[in-house]
């Protein structure tokens, strides 16, 4: 192996298992998780010079020592003994894998989303507090507190309490959408964690989530142009899509769909797969995409889905049909103005589209999106200046 896989993922792979070992030896989750984090930071310091023969055993031993140190100083502070045996129980480490339970615990519904994300990245992902803080552009102290508060909230929740997969899936998808930019690629990390989740459970929604992530991730290189400029799906260079990743996503999705327990992530993955399947934007099977949006809308009732569906209807049945579908959608949604401007342009109303894009840019939530929408408005204004209004045929 490469020296401990510090740049890769090797050492991080062990983190959930080591937390599980400590908990089974009698540590509570919060202390076990702290001890493993400290052992991990120690590993980063000393492994490069002095790599252990058995990294997992090293991590267990180091984390157990850190845990005992913490218990001793705590009992000294309180002036009484705490009931934890200093010696680990004899015999081999049981082969129980608590990783799935850790996913559940870290995504516990009692936690605020940002806290669930941070705790998942640390206890399941094996990232250090500093890495998580950097990825979220907050100070390390803030992130450390966010994680300790999350753990305090979980006090009394046993590691083996029944969990809800839908909360885990939501947290991982949040991580995926937090994007990339710093040292830690959160989108790639989310894919890794989803891959691991799929290995632990045969719930079709877990596979649906991983398929969805892979199908989006496969397009990543083509999604931004020079200077981080946003390239919309229709304009992407499809030769840059990662076909291996797409194939993996499609296979996963097909297997999941065959289980006949449809969920929102499978439905979203199906839409992403139909986009991935088209060699050119013009070949996109919009009729099928609209059908999947109908399924998704029935599953979620989400206004955002209704908005995306209206755009798909505009592609399948013409811009006027799309605008008609938009009439049922809440205009207060973040991307409503952008969707409407897009459909107006296709209906030939360049002036209305330009005004709509300006409004949409004002409501954008990211710099790349705002810049893209501003450019669209500028393009339409220029087109309106250079040629007299000539509506497209519908």
């Amino acid at each position, binding site marked *: 192996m490469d020296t401990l896989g510090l740049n890769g993922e090797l050492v991080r792979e062990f983190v959930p298992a080591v937390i599980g070992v400590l908990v089974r030896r009698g540590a509570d989750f919060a202390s076990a998780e702290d001890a493993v984090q400290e052992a991990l930071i120690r590993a980063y310091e000393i492994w490069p010079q002095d790599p252990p023969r058995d990294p997992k055993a090293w991590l267990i031993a180091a984390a157990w020592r850190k845990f005992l140190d913490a218990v001793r100083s705590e009992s000294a502070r309180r002036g009484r003994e705490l009931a934890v045996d200093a010696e680990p129980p004899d015999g081999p480490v049981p082969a129980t894998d608590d990783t799935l339970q850790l996913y559940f615990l870290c995504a516990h519904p009692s936690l605020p989303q*940002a806290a669930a994300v941070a705790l998942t990245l640390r206890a399941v992902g094996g990232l250090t507090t500093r890495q998580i803080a950097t990825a979220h552009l907050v100070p390390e102290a*803030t992130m450390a*507190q*966010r994680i300790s508060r999350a753990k305090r909230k979980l006090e009394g929740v046993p590691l083996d309490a029944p969990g809800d997969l839908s909360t885990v899936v939501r947290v991982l998808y949040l991580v995926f*959408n937090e*994007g990339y930019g710093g040292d830690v690629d959160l*989108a790639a990390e989310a894919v890794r964690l989803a891959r691991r989740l799929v290995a632990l459970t045969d719930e079709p929604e877990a596979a649906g989530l991983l398929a969805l992530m892979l199908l*989006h991730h496969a397009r990543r290189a083509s999604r931004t142009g020079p200077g981080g400029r946003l390239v919309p799906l229709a304009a992407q260079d499809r030769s840059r899509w990662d076909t291996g990743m797409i194939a993996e996503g499609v296979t996963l999705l097909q297997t999941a769909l065959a289980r006949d327990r449809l969920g929102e992530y499978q439905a979203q993955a199906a839409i992403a797969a139909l986009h991935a399947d088209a060699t050119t934007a013009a070949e996109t099977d919009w009729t099928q995409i609209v059908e999947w949006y109908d399924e998704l809308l029935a599953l979620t009732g989400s206004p955002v889905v209704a908005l995306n569906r209206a755009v798909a209807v505009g592609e399948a049945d013409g811009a006027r049909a799309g605008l008609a579908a938009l009439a049922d959608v809440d205009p207060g949604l973040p991307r409503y103005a952008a969707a409407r401007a897009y459909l107006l342009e296709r209906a030939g109303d360049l002036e209305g589209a330009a005004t709509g894009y300006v409004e949409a840019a004002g409501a954008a939530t990211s710099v790349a999106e705002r810049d893209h929408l501003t450019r669209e408005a500028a393009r339409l204004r220029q087109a309106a200046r250079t040629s007299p209004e000539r509506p497209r045929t519908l």
Partner: protein
Amino acid sequence: MKYLLLKHYRGGPAPVVDFAPLDQWAPEKVDAHIQFMRDFADKLVETGEFVDAQAVAQEGAFVRFDGEGRPPVTDGPFAETKDLVAGWMVIDVESWERAVELAGELSSAPGPDGEPIHEWLEVRPFLNHAPSGGE
């Protein structure tokens, strides 16, 4: 979600309490005001919501490019400018409602008479900078 809580020396809606600049307060009131700000920031570190806090001096200048090979032009400061930023705090919170709640709390900092100054704070969401993993 990150939000900017912007504090102005001037600008924004008409002040609710018209108080004198800090340098005209009793020193212990100044200390109490500053301590309040410090405690507020500490509390946000504790809740995992603190990102940054900075203050800027009143004096500064406007600067602009003046052509290749020429030094930049400076101008100002302009005493009559309507809006003058005093400083800011950046928070990372779950919702707009929470951002408003915190801004309201920060605006209760004690004034020259020890009572809350009810100062207007401007709350603005940050545009996300990292490219998203999704589309």
